[in-house]
């Protein structure tokens, strides 16, 4: 495998991790979040600061990073308890803009210069780069998928499904909306934080513009296109949307247009996602299955 492929693969794996986090919030708990890149960024900045200024190793910093992003996710998830639908959607966009501004304009976060000199991840005494780092990301992705899967099987997960479907009915069955919405926010943002940490140690320098609203849209598109609320949807979405720009690469000046146009067409004709209900994939799958039975 070439380093080019590995780099693309690493980005896809990292973005898939972040998308899985968003899927927990949006897909499982039914809360709209359009500012997920903010948490991706918080994870990256937390890990970068802890490993550069704080002198931690990646592994030492990681639990702290997860805690910090989860905690900030908890705090910023509070509006979801009070605001509904479009108000919440726009508020989360606002959170994204504000977080980026804080990174850009507070000198502690390196300001416009960003943070550089982030060390590589060291595992068993070797500095990970290239393929080993990709495998590290894939291992984390697998872990995130496992956690997602366990979450869907846990009472907490079921509580989130119930809240997503009908909040009043769920709370009449003993499900505390506050507790479980926030639980979903903590889990989802911690996953984004993990993705952020991996990103920081892969790029080895970060700046606020990497985590702007366009990134949030990208992640949300991955979740929606892949199939919101499905286990593998976000991963598929990350794969498709991560590879598209590379496929269009030779068309240099036209590729972003093609990318946008294709995104538009996909959302227009498969609004339920590639793995969602009534999607092409599901239909074909069920037809094949039906065919066998007959």
């Amino acid at each position, binding site marked *: 495998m070439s380093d080019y492929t590995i780099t693309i693969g690493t980005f896809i794996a990292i973005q898939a991790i972040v998308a899985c986090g968003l899927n927990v919030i949006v897909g499982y708990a039914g809360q709209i979040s359009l500012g997920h890149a903010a948490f991706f960024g918080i994870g990256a900045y937390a890990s970068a600061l802890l490993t550069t200024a704080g002198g931690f190793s990646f592994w030492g910093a990681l639990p702290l990073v997860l805690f910090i992003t989860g905690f900030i996710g908890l705090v910023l998830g509070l509006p979801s308890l009070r605001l509904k639908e479009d108000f919440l959607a726009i508020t989360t966009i606002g959170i994204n803009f504000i977080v980026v501004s804080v990174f850009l304009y507070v000198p502690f976060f390196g300001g416009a210069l960003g943070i550089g000199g982030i060390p590589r991840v060291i595992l068993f005494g070797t500095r990970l780069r290239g393929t080993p780092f990709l495998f590290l990301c894939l291992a984390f992705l697998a872990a995130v998928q496992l956690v997602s899967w*366990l979450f869907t*099987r*846990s*009472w*907490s*997960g*079921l*509580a989130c*499904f*119930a809240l997503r*479907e*009908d909040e*009043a*009915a*769920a*709370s*009449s*069955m*003993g*499900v*505390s*909306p506050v*507790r*479980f919405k926030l*639980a979903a926010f903590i889990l989802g943002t911690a996953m984004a934080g993990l993705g952020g940490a991996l990103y920081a140690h892969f790029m080895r320098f970060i700046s606020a513009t990497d985590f702007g609203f366009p990134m949030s849209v990208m992640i949300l598109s991955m979740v929606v296109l892949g199939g919101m609320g499905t286990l593998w949807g976000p991963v598929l979405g990350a794969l498709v949307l991560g590879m598209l720009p590379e496929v269009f690469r030779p068309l240099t000046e036209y590729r972003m247009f093609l990318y946008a146009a294709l995104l538009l067409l996909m959302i227009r004709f498969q609004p339920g996602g590639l793995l969602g209900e009534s999607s092409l994939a599901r239909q074909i799958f069920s037809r094949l299955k039906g065919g066998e039975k007959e």
Partner: protein
Amino acid sequence: MTEILLSLREVSMHFGGLKALDKVSFDLCDGEILGLIGPNGAGKTTCFNTVSGVYRPTSGEIRFGGIRTDGLPPHRMAALGIGRTFQIVRPFPNLSVLDNVIVAMGLPCYRGIIPSCGSWKRQKTRDGAMELLSKVGLDLQAPQKAGLLPLGNLRRLELARALALNPRLLLLDESFSGLRHEEVAMQEELVRKTRESGISILLIEHNMRVAMGLSDRLVVLDHGLKLAEGSPDEIRKNPEVIQAYLGKEGHSNVA
């Protein structure tokens, strides 16, 4: 009379200038079926919602099993032992019928962090839920998506969900409306059985025949005020009730 399970003392609920409930007081005894009747807009559903914790009453006191409960949120009320159904059915449409019931069976697990991490896909849970479903006659529909069920089945699903909470008190909000004749009979049978198993019931009902037939006692509300309270026979004869509820010509009594 036996022990008092639920008591409302001068409970008022105001929305802006509207007095949806105005100093309403009544008691519900353990093991009793109490019917709450009154014309539309009388404050019946508001009353339900204050009892089940959806609203915090503007003033007054609600006690359940001796504990003061006004102001507690719905999920705490559920934990204390109040199960409810909704006037307009609220299933979890994209979950299966079985999973709808399992959500309610998780009640003991939702309070703690460690239990809430446990798996709900266990055979024991499943069996328990299936048992409840067969009790209400929905065992065949268990794998279907709840959103695809017809109304009659949904009413029974709501009942099964509420029962899955192992409640001491069941709040039934018009759970007969929209049902076919034979379904009404079936539902009535279910409610009676439920009471026999020791669960007290507070019900709102529009269908007078059902309300009169099921309830031990009735409370009549009108424009937020308690108009009357008593046995079905007493209520039927109460001139004030006839005047307010049945209208001057006494014809619009059913709906």
